[in-house]
């Protein structure tokens, strides 16, 4: 890393970023409709209070441990280790209540919203995991919850739709736009704009206007804190490389953060390479996007020469998003994290390998991380790696059954 990049990383580690304007270097900011600005400012103020409040932090940790099933295990993947010639460790977010890392953020934000005295929660969901997590957290806290979900995602993640309804959440099918995660976020914002004082929007990833990318990262950083300590305890050493999948990027940020200061640890974010490298055939924002503004933040983005947002494709609903968290764009710009992509078929192949040899069904999203990990292992025999297993694949059974029967 160059000196300039090292200084920026230092600023991030010292808590100076995001800065007062909500930026990580040039990325981030607050590109929100005026109606939301007072609510965003109020949220900013309260985050400062509650994230530093020991009582709130203790309540949050208690709930994470006693209700959401933390700390999650670190699993030594003995079969993959043999097959790949490296020591493979898995951080098991799939073991959390509701089955993915999303619960950390949903629970934390719902608890925060309750403290702020809001009357209802809105959330968006792609794969349905954030929707289910929000629905469960809201049921636990007695808050009414509405979840927006793209019509296409409702079809490919059907089990999660019924789970949300069972938890008492209203699920609204979004027929506008691309009918996936991006349109669901548009619609959740529209809902929030109509009653910003009494509604809290639990955004599901490290995207959106400041302070959301920061707030969600803080809620997810428990993943990396646990994993780093577990590597030292169980593995007796830090990993040589860490891999996590990136859609909006919340599980990756959560896992990476504790390792950012460990210079010797290489970090890899893996996006959805979809069917091909052609525009519209993937969701590899950091690999092939350009800077732009969507959903309240300035970050890397898949858009055309007229500034229109590109349709994306991924077999995994959770990665099917044309933007990415501004902190990832920043980490790429200072060369601290390397971002690559994995194709649909590669991810599905690794999903099967993990199933067959480790007895774990990973989400299709998480399977993308394994693709790059296996590639890296070929040139780095004998080393040790940590893979973020962000969620379980039960929700993907309709997609997987269809493929099995083809």
């Amino acid at each position, binding site marked *: 890393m160059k000196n300039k990049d090292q200084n920026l990383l230092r600023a991030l580690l010292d808590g100076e970023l995001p800065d007062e304007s909500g930026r990580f270097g040039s990325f981030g*900011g607050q590109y929100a409709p*005026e*109606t939301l*600005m*007072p609510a965003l400012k109020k949220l900013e103020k309260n985050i400062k209070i509650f994230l530093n409040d020991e009582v709130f932090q203790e309540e949050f940790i208690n709930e994470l441990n006693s209700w959401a099933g933390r700390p999650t295990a670190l699993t030594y993947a003995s079969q993959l280790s043999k097959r790949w010639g490296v020591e493979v460790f898995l951080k098991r977010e799939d073991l959390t209540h509701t089955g993915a890392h999303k619960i950390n953020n949903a629970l934390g934000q719902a608890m925060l919203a309750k403290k702020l005295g809001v009357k209802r929660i809105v959330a968006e969901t792609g794969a349905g995991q954030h929707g289910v997590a929000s629905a469960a957290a809201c049921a636990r806290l007695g808050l009414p919850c509405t979840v927006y979900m793209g019509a296409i995602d409702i079809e490919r993640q059907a089990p999660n739709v019924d789970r949300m309804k069972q938890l008492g959440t209203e699920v609204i099918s979004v027929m506008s736009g691309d009918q996936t995660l991006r349109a669901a976020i548009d619609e959740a914002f529209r809902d929030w*704009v109509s009653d910003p004082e009494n509604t809290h929007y639990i955004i599901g990833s490290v995207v959106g206007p400041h302070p959301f990318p920061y707030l969600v990262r803080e809620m997810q950083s428990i993943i990396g804190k646990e994993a780093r300590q577990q590597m030292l305890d169980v593995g007796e050493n830090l990993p040589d490389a860490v891999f996590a999948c990136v859609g909006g990027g919340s599980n990756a940020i959560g896992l990476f953060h504790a390792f950012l200061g460990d210079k010797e640890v290489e970090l890899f974010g893996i996006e959805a390479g979809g069917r091909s490298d052609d525009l519209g055939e993937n969701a590899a924002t950091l690999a092939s996007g350009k800077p732009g503004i969507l959903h309240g933040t300035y970050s890397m983005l898949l858009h055309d020469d007229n500034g*229109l947002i590109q349709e994306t494709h991924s077999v995994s609903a959770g990665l099917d998003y044309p933007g990415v968290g501004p902190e990832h764009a920043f980490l790429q710009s200072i060369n601290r994290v390397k971002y690559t992509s994995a194709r649909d078929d590669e991810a599905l192949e690794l999903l099967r390998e993990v199933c067959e040899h480790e007895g774990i069904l990973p989400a299709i999203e998480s399977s993308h991380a394994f693709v790059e990990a296996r590639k890296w292992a070929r040139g780095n025999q004998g080393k040790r790696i940590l893979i973020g297993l962000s969620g379980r694949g039960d929700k993907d059974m309709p997609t997987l059954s269809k493929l099995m029967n083809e």
Partner: protein
Amino acid sequence: MIGGKYIEKKIRAPKAGGPAIIPFITAGYPNTEDFKQTLHEIAKKADVIEIGVPFSDPMADGVTIQRSSHLAIENGVTLTWIFDQLREIKLDTPIVLMSYLNPLYVFGMKELVEASIASGVDGFIVPDLPIEESKELNEQLMDAGLALIQLVTPATPLDRIELIANQSTGFIYAVTVKGVTGGEDALSADVTDYLKQVQEISRIPVCAGFGIREKSDVEMIADYIDGVIVGSAIVETIEKGNSPTEFLDQLKN
């Protein structure tokens, strides 16, 4: 005369008496062929014309403008196309472009000013650009005398309305509802108090928009504002194949 000053002047002296009428249309909707003709028609009645630059993710817009934006994009409408069309006509009515930030950002700030001057665009409304982020664009536009029309809403605290009013040029866009454009609900009774407050703070004209659909809406707020922006209702009129000028006439008579 161009830009902010021109817009102010036209709003202060409306064609058919007060309040000024500012219709909004989505560029190239329902089709690209009629765009210039529609502008000529509307210009007969409008004091300022607001043209919507279609965007793929219109976060602040309701169903009508989502629909018109989507179809305009399918019709091939882009910011470049809009500038090209406007260069070919001459209207005696100021034009403001309503655009989300990303198409403007991609076009380039310097290029945006040049194209605006060349095609008779007087100002911009950017619904996802709050004052915290608008410095760069505002400076570029101000240097050329072009307007950046800022929005205030019923959720905006008074001290913030003052900040926004100080930075706005052309007019202040007072959003009358919390929510997206084109709402069906009637304006709330306390909207007049809010508009009165904005008017007291502002040194430039105040125009109200979002959810203004008919004559009774205009009557309700006419005493407190300098102009009204009518968007979804006129887009729906054009959609049905009805005359936009007749629609604009009956708003005041």
